[in-house]
């Protein structure tokens, strides 16, 4: 193999192993930042040695062994340092213990280490931004440049966010042990939130005119798949995975050639990715088998699955969707769920039912500048034949949009509401 080939091979192997490497090292040295440095050191060693020695048979184990040697060296040096300052006599033995501990740590299941690292990256002491960034860096293995591009920010900003996050973790004394019981449930919720946040950042870009930054969706899906792989008994992990797989199945269909959004009923279902729908349905079935049918993500996934299963828009089981929203509203009461519930009821039982559920929502302060509210209202009114009111609602929605493609779409719908006579949408 030529040197450049070996280089590429080393870097690729490193990328595959990186998260597990950092995870194992984090358990040993109880410091994410240091673990990352040690992993990088191992990469440097591999880049220096593999071109002459060849790529080892088990490159992952090789990298881990190299990083471990580094870790032990550092620990010994630290101990020596300590001893210089310390009072007489202590602790040659302590140095030994630390080395033994590291050996013991390495024998444990690597999957648990990775899960722990995910728990740490999504630790509630960190801000949501910091959690997202750290997860993309440590678990998904994105470079700082890639993260900066995905979030339309600068590399120094991302780098600083990561440094600060590591410092926060270190200073807060965040435990590196696997959380248990209620704490585990709380921490898992944070992990799921982070993955869904990453997905949504890609699915509905909040800034800029590019409606889809699909690579973030892909990363979130991968994270969800990893999580269900290493935590196979967590129903809500499967619920979340089901939800994002099914939502991602529509990525190709939800934006037209002109960049405008296409609503679900109008999407070309032949463009839906059936492989992802199948994976989503499978994950949902798993969540339900594990007793998680009423989980917040599982319920949302079940709703998405109703669309995924419908071969045409007319086949959509809106009654089931409406009843799933009724349950969702009990599990996670929120104004946004209320609004979606109104939409589902309008489809299942007619626009009057929708308008009736919408009326109280219009009084809610939290929904005052929430674009989907006037957009939905416009739709109900349009279907009721109240075109002038519909037009006003669509225009109000357009005024709230921060996305050019979306705004154009809403203005188009407003324009389709001729004041006097019904106009069909093209």
């Amino acid at each position, binding site marked *: 193999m030529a040197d450049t080939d070996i280089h*590429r*091979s080393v*870097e*690729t*192997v490193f*990328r*595959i192993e990186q998260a597990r490497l950092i995870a194992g090292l984090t358990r040993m040295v109880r410091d994410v930042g240091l673990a990352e440095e040690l992993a990088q050191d191992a990469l440097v060693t591999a880049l220096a040695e593999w071109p002459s020695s060849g790529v080892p048979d088990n490159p992952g184990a090789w990298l881990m062994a190299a990083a471990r040697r580094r870790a032990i060296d550092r620990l010994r040096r630290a101990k020596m340092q300590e001893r210089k300052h310390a009072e007489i006599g202590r602790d040659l033995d302590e140095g030994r213990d630390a080395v033994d501990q590291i050996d013991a740590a390495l024998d444990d299941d690597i*999957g648990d280490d990775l899960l722990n690292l995910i728990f740490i990256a999504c630790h509630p002491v960190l801000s949501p931004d910091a959690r997202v960034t750290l997860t993309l860096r440590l678990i998904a293995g994105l470079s700082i440049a890639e993260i900066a591009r995905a979030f339309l920010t600068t590399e120094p900003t991302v780098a600083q966010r990561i440094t600060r996050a590591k410092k926060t973790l270190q200073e807060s004394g965040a435990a590196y042990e696997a959380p248990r019981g209620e704490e585990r449930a709380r921490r898992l919720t944070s992990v799921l939130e982070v993955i869904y946040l990453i997905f949504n950042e890609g699915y509905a870009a909040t800034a800029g005119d590019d409606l889809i930054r*699909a690579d973030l969706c*892909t990363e979130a*899906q*991968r*994270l*969800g*798949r*990893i999580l269900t*792989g*290493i935590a196979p008994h967590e129903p809500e992990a499967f619920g979340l995975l089901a939800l994002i797989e099914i939502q991602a199945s529509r*990525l*190709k269909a939800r934006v037209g050639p002109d960049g405008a959004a296409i609503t679900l009923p109008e999407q070309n279902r032949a463009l839906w990715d059936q*492989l992802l729908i*199948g*994976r989503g349905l499978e994950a949902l079935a798993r969540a339900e088998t594990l007793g998680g049918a009423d989980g917040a993500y599982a319920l949302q996934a079940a709703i998405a699955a109703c669309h995924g299963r419908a071969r045409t828009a007319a086949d959509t089981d809106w009654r089931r969707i409406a009843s799933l929203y009724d349950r969702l509203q009990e599990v996670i009461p929120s104004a946004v769920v209320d609004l979606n519930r109104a939409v589902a009821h309008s489809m299942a039982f007619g626009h009057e039912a929708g308008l009736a559920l919408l009326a109280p929502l219009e009084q809610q302060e939290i929904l005052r500048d929430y674009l989907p509210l006037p957009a939905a209202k416009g739709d109900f009114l349009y279907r009721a034949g109240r075109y002038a009111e519909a037009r006003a609602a669509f225009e109000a929605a357009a005024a709230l949009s921060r996305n050019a493609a979306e705004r154009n779409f809403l203005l188009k719908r407003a324009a389709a509401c001729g004041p006097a006579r019904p106009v069909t949408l093209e």
Partner: protein
Amino acid sequence: MRVMVIVKATQDSENMGKPKAADLAEMGRFNDELRKAGVLLTADGLKPSSTGKRVAFDGAKRTVTDGPFAESRELVAGFWIWEVKDMAEAVEWVKRCLNPMPGPSEIEIRPIWEMSDFA
């Protein structure tokens, strides 16, 4: 990027040889590794080409031919669909796969057309 990873057929796979439990189990472990790395989207094995059909298209004509098909080395015996960062990652994963056949064999990796390729 999404890739299709194709296990090429061999004389053995074409001869209806059922896989041994040990091989199935080892392949299961490899699939497990792929799954935990978030790489695996789907995987399946195809029955020998003797159970297959070909439909030839020429203008408006459609001609159906029954298997088996001769060129065993070029047939597909099984496949995975993976989501990977790039071809290099796919190559590294394939290198970790056990030899899927009793004798010498080949696995082919082919990138799949994606939305962004048409943008």
